[in-house]
């Protein structure tokens, strides 16, 4: 199926393709259906529909200079580009562009690890470098650093950071965009810019002081469309000598408030890694009486039934990185702190292991207590096992999804905030008649970002109706959820292209001044609007009429 970029004639497109071929080599310009198959979103809600977000062509440059040439040609013919790193952003649109008919700039060939310094603790990489690649490089060269990997590890460091992706080790490193140390960008006019100390030609510290001097534009490139990032630095965690974990449980629902206070304190002093919250009461959801209490948020009834079952209401798994002695001291201090704040709190020692863990230790799922932690990611070891979520598998027998969207809302980082969000999300689901996949009263946040809580919006969509009409109906429902969440003050942090306008609409303070400001900048630096128009709801003037187009 031949698709053209919007507003571009077949003749112009053919000329542009020839120029792309001249710039990067004929074999790296892809236009056939077979070639373009891999640039579709495997989980698209609009797969095979006339508005499916698929490209007209893809180009695979190998150098920054080739990216520049592609951008110049795109400007000449006013062709929208959509840059991907490894294209593995599944659950958030995969490699699919915001505008049907864009030319995908596939940066996989730019896969060089330019620097990986285990004394100064940073790496400088190109977009095609995946977490697995960097991990392999670290292992092969016996470097004394870890890579903070997301789930799964096949994605690109740059791509993940660009979409504000996250990891699972110590706080600073988990925020992948926040842990960047400067970047090289091909601007919409084809010029190359370096940020921070990279703006100084003779700098010895590009990866160490990312602010440079004056305004720092880096934030414009995260979930943005102001250029194509061709190099980026990342701070790497020095490999710790020891890892230890432990379990804390607290008896009553309201105990979540002091528990989170204590854990926030520990996290913000950088005394522990990512805390994993949960509820030991999940098994009681099979009990009719408890389930009724939980669905009605009847706290006293839930507390009473938890007590009679001998179960605590909440748990958090803590993990500590350092030496054997420092991890022990931090764990002991964590126990002391929580015990001071929460009467009746219980503590269970986890494991205490010298790092790096062996493969057997990483694969070991037994321990002093049942754990939800996926140990590989706590150890900076990439994996692929998370894909059990997308298929009907042994661990996931009832939730087969041929579509898959991640929606996580920012909530207040406090116990009060969690308890309120639970009720708010349940109300929204009830009002919109969307069966929640989670028992809301037991839902806990994820602390992927050190200083923020995200909580999932897990809905069973469309009553299992996976027909095109059923998927459209489900998508419309999701849009309603986003609107309702926004009214309550919950904004999402990330979305696939079909929902990016809707998420952007949540951020409406002062008549959308943030978006107006960003689009003013966009129009100034990208007058033809060729770089990823529509990404994160930022539409350049030539494409602005397409805003909200995915809703129809």
């Amino acid at each position: 199926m031949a698709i053209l970029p919007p507003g571009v004639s077949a003749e112009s497109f053919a000329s542009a393709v020839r120029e792309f071929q001249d710039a990067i080599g004929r074999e790296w310009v892809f236009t056939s259906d077979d070639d373009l198959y891999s640039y579709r979103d495997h989980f698209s809600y609009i797969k095979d529909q006339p508005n499916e977000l698929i490209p007209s062509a893809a180009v695979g440059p190998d150098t920054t200079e080739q990216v520049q040439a592609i951008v110049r040609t795109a400007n000449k013919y006013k062709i929208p580009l959509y840059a991907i790193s490894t294209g593995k952003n599944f659950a958030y649109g995969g490699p699919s562009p915001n505008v049907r008919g864009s030319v995908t700039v596939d940066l996989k060939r730019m896969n060089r690890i330019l620097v990986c310094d285990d004394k100064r603790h940073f790496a400088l990489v190109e977009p095609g470098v995946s977490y697995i690649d960097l991990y392999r490089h670290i292992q092969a060269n016996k470097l004394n650093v870890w890579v903070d990997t997301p789930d799964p590890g096949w994605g690109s460091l740059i791509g993940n950071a660009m979409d504000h992706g996250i990891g699972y080790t110590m706080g600073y490193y988990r925020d992948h965009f926040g842990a960047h140390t400067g970047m090289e960008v091909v601007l919409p006019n084809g010029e190359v810019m370096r940020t921070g100390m990279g703006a100084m030609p003779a700098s010895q510290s590009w990866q160490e002081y990312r602010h440079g001097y004056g305004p720092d534009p880096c934030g414009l490139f995260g979930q943005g469309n102001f250029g194509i990032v061709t190099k980026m630095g990342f701070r790497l965690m020095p490999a710790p000598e020891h890892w230890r974990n432990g379990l804390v449980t607290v008896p009553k629902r309201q105990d979540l408030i002091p528990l989170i206070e204590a854990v926030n304190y520990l996290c913000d002093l950088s005394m522990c890694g990512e805390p994993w919250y949960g509820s030991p009461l999940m098994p009681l959801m099979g009990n009719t009486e408890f389930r009724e209490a939980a669905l009605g948020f009847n706290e006293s009834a839930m507390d009473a039934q938890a007590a009679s079952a001998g179960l605590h209401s909440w748990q958090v798994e803590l993990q500590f990185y350092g030496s054997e002695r420092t991890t022990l001291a931090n764990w002991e201090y964590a126990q002391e702190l929580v015990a001071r704040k929460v009467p009746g709190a219980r503590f269970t020692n986890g494991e205490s292991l010298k790092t790096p863990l062996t493969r057997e230790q990483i694969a070991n799922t037994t321990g002093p207590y049942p754990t939800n932690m996926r140990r590989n990611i706590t150890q900076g070891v990439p994996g692929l096992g998370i894909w059990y979520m997308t298929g009907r598998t042994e661990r996931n027998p009832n939730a087969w999804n041929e579509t898959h969207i991640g929606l996580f809302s920012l909530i207040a980082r406090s116990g009060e905030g969690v308890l309120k969000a639970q009720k708010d999300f349940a109300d929204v689901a009830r009002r919109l008649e969307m069966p929640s996949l989670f028992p809301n009263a037991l839902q806990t946040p994820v602390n992927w970002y050190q200083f923020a809580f995200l909580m999932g919006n897990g809905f069973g969509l469309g009553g299992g109706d996976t027909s095109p009409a059923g998927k459209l109906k489900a998508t419309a429902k999701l849009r309603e959820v986003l609107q309702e969440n926004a009214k309550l003050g919950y904004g999402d942090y990330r979305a696939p292209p079909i929902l990016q306008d809707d998420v952007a609409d949540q951020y409406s303070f002062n008549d959308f001044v943030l978006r107006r400001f960003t689009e003013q900048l966009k129009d100034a630096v990208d007058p033809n609007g060729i770089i990823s128009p529509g990404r994160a709801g930022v539409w350049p003037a030539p494409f602005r009429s397409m805003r909200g187009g995915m809703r129809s």
Partner: protein
Amino acid sequence: MTNRRDLLRGAAALPVVATPFARALAATRESLKLERFVFDVRFAESGAIGEHVGRLGVALSPVADDLMTLWYDDLDLKWRKAPMALAGVTLEDAFFVLETFALDRGMHVVYRGEHGLVEDGRIRHRLAGPAALIELLKPLPAEWESALANALTECPLGAQVTARAELVSPGAALSLRDMPLYSWIIAPRAAVATRVES
């Protein structure tokens, strides 16, 4: 990312094999040489198919719920040098992961089969792939695992006419429960030009 057009040009140099099974069915047909068979060790059916395929001389890669070891220690290193043909019987997630990696390296899915229980305890097989391969499976006997194992090693080369079939076999083993297994063949685009979509 592999240079796809170089692969297409190199098609004639790829290895082929004609096994005794193939010769019995089609004396002149050349088949894709499988360099690996990936099977999920948690299910009796995939284990049985793996055993059959192993007896046909194909190297086996047992997997469970995380393909990282297979990818990191084996396929990534080999696929950096050259694409290769492989087949398997796995759950859907493993199939998705391998197809996605394969698409990055000049390979694609040329056959896929979904094998799931139907209500009366029989197994429904939804198959799509080269017509000649699908024909090998008709009619599907009660011992479908060995028939499938043979067919998977008989994928014809070149551009193929794609066929689809929905077959039912009796006597389901219980290990499938409500989780379909997927059989698949991934091949270099140069070796089998016809892709099958999920």
